């Protein structure tokens, strides 16, 4: 029952192995956040290389750079990697680092579970990527439409899609556990005074995202388990020749898939809602509207999934209904954009890299939103769906939206996370290259879709009018690659040469700027009194009436009982999370080779998991 404080030991004079051991056993949300971010950046680069190879293949008509099989594998892995292993974990990583700071907590609600989520993500990612080496990479698209994903059609079936199914489920477990953690942290660990309507909007966004994950992921879990049964155990849920229904896969998939879009984009909304006020020195315009419209978008997100399926022959009534709900969702989204504009309006805009990305986010997301409305109109969708128009549309949303938002967040929070600034000069270079490359890559796709280029095709015939713009797109993709390379360079350089910022380099508003950069293991020595949405701003500019000295955290931590103020204690490091995650992954490989001794893999994996579970349970009982 020891409750003494266990500080995270300072690295430095210790050996390299000790440092690695510290990172492996860490339960500190800030370290886990950093692990998330760097792992996800690695996968982002990997997924980007996939995309570059795809673009090189498409640079010229009837190109033979890639075989159709490799092309199909690469676009499947590009989508899967970017969605599950890059953008989602980048969001989770930023959230992991920032959310507890923003709400004034010492850590996430369940620090060990947090570590488990990370290790599951890493191992799930490795599991999926290992298909490049030890098997066949998944090749039926990230949407894995049955029956193609179930029996492969006329050509012999490989275990490629088993990698996908099992990998997705490992990543899904990671996401659901992480989401539960976020929900409890945000609901339950807010500092005194931080009411819901004083929560930073980034926290609101993360809260809504966590709920979306919790409610959307079970659907893909069920769908993919059924798919696994169809592939390996002889059931026929999605196999029409024995009565199964391929449409069932699509509905289950998109019931998850559409909320997933908001899972990817809402954190970027949150980042923008933090960056704009700080860099225009104004409060956010229409706080309540932005917060509640996130909730509205999240809820409506569960009613629109079949707009991905207008062309499957659901019939006019179903199409009309899903069209109506989809159009409706554009209203809260539009309101958000106007609120952001109004936040800039009349401000004093400090043009640093985060704001560049923020403004570009609006610019690009508006385009993605407009084309999104077009796709919500069934007759137009009949022509544009599954064409490059859609590819252009969702890259404006997910690249122009999510990725630009994330870069705004990186440049904004990097000094807080690492105690070093990223270079402004390189940042602006990176920005312009990315902005130009992005538009050059994805804008022509709309046009190409309208003149009939179908998506997911490994090549196209000469004489269709596709040549010129496809070449431009490839050039654009190379420009984006250059820009990402500059970002990586910036990261490396900033480690040694980055300007050392103060605790509050941007004149911030929210609690994370009230602590040091990087923050201490327990996050806060002194906690400002929270009387508004901008506690740190109040501290600096607040009028005398509201101005209060920060309180000592020991006092702030417990409002009533003195027996509690024995200081902050953080949970000790634990290596059980990585063991549990490892066990699940071993079981995953067992499932992969179920007919060639995989049962033993499952048994061994479950045994290892049991060690992890028992260890975690006893640790939980101890503290």
């Amino acid at each position, binding site marked *: 029952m020891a409750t003494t404080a266990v500080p995270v030991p300072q690295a430095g004079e210790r050996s390299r192995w000790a440092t690695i051991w510290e990172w492996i056993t860490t339960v500190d949300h800030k370290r886990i956040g950093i692990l998330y971010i760097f792992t996800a950046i690695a996968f982002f680069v990997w997924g980007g290389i996939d995309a570059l190879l795809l673009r090189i293949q498409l640079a010229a008509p009837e190109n033979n750079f890639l075989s159709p099989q490799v092309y199909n594998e690469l676009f499947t892995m590009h989508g899967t990697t970017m969605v599950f292993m890059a953008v989602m974990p980048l969001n989770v990583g930023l959230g992991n680092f920032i959310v507890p700071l923003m709400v004034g907590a010492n850590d996430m609600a369940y620090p060990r579970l947090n570590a488990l989520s990370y290790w599951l993500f890493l191992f799930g990612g490795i599991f999926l990527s290992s298909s490049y080496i030890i098997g066949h990479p998944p090749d039926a698209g990230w949407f894995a439409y049955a029956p193609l994903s179930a029996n492969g059609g006329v050509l012999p079936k490989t275990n490629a899609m088993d990698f996908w199914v099992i990998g997705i489920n490992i990543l899904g477990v990671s996401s659901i556990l992480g989401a539960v953690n976020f929900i409890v942290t945000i609901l339950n660990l807010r500092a005194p005074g931080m009411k819901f309507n004083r929560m930073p909007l980034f926290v609101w966004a993360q809260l809504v995202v966590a709920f979306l994950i919790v409610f959307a992921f079970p659907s893909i*879990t069920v769908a993919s388990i059924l798919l696994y049964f169809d592939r390996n155990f002889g059931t026929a849920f999605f196999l029409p020749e024995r009565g199964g229904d391929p449409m069932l896969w699509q509905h289950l998939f998109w019931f998850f898939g559409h909320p997933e879009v908001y899972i990817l984009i809402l954190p970027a909304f949150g980042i923008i809602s933090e960056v704009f006020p700080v860099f225009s020195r104004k409060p956010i315009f229409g706080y309540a509207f932005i917060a509640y419209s996130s909730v509205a978008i999240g809820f409506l997100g569960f009613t629109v999934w079949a707009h991905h399926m207008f062309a499957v022959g659901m019939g006019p009534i179903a199409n009309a209904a899903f069209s109506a709900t989809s159009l409706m969702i554009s209203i809260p989204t539009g309101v958000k954009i106007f609120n952001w504009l109004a936040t800039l309006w009349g401000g004093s805009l400090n043009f640093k890299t985060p704001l560049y990305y923020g403004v570009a986010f609006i610019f690009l997301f508006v385009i993605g939103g407009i084309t999104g409305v077009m796709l919500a109109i069934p007759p137009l969708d009949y022509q544009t769906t599954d064409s490059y128009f859609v590819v252009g549309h969702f890259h404006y949303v997910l690249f122009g939206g999510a990725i630009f938002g994330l870069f705004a967040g990186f440049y904004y929070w990097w000094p807080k996370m690492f105690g070093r600034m990223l270079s402004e000069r390189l940042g602006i270079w990176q920005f312009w290259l990315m902005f130009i490359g992005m538009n050059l890559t994805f804008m022509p796709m709309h046009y190409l879709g309208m003149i009939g280029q179908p998506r997911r095709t490994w090549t196209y015939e000469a004489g269709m009018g596709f040549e010129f713009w496809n070449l431009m797109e490839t050039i654009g993709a190379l420009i984006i690659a250059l820009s990402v390379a500059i970002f990586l360079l910036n990261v490396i350089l900033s480690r040694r040469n980055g300007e050392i910022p103060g605790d509050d380099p941007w004149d911030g508003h929210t609690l994370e700027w009230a602590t040091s950069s990087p923050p201490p293991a327990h996050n806060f020595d002194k906690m400002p009194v929270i009387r508004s949405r901008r506690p740190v701003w109040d501290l600096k500019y607040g009028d005398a009436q509201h101005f209060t000295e920060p309180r000592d955290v020991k006092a702030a931590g417990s409002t009533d009982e003195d027996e509690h103020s024995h200081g902050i204690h953080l949970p000790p490091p634990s290596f059980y999370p990585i063991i549990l995650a490892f066990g699940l992954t071993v079981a995953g490989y067992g499932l992969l080779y179920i007919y060639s001794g995989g049962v033993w893999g499952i048994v061994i994996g479950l045994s290892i998991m049991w060690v992890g579970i028992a260890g975690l349970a006893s640790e939980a009982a101890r503290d």
Partner: protein
Amino acid sequence: MAQAVAHDQKEHAAGGHGHGHPPTSLGLNSRKVGLWTFISSEAIFFTALISTYLVLKPRNIALGGPEPQDFLGITLTAILAFILLMSSLTMVLALHAVETDNVRGTRLWLGATILLGLMFLGGQVYEFNKLWSEGFHTIVITEPDGKVERIGVAEHHLEEELPHLQAEHPNAQIQDTGRKPVTWTTSLFGSTFFTMTGFHGTHVAIGVVWLSIVLVMSLRGAISSRNSLTVEMAGLYWHFVDLVWVAIFTLIYLI
């Protein structure tokens, strides 16, 4: 609300040196908030499975798969439902015993819950086994105009059913495609039914393991009213699993 806060603080003061956190902003225990969130997620998991069963049901029948009502005995499932309801009762009694520091009662009722859980699992194994050993025949009726109809007939009805079908379709060609066992892979009914009830059974089994751990803790004297939450959490999960059976019982067995 005030009361809830007071309660939680009391709980905190008593048992929870620490969950490492100061009193929470909602005044609620974090583990309980997490569990309820997870239960909410599980509700959608089971809804997806049940929806799968329901939307594939007509296709199963149109394909001449086995008709559920020929095989699912209401008596047995009513008993299973009764067992689970009973276990929910013993579960709340166990919680009550913990809260009143009734150590014997805690162990007794926890043990009873585990036993009932095992009985339920045993019943399910019995049912699965019974289904597995039964058979059905897909009768293909080809009308003179080329219309094909498939009808699934339980093996134990075959004798009486065939003359009926012949009478109903006097000019049609009636063909029996032979016996197929009612297993996981021979029909959509089997696939959906075994998957859904199998996942439910797995949840029951996990619940049994969870409760057994709590029982062991109680036997070691590690459970008292100070940490009644340990029992309450297991109980919430257990009741949820019961709740799922309420839905499955109605939608699959009765309708």
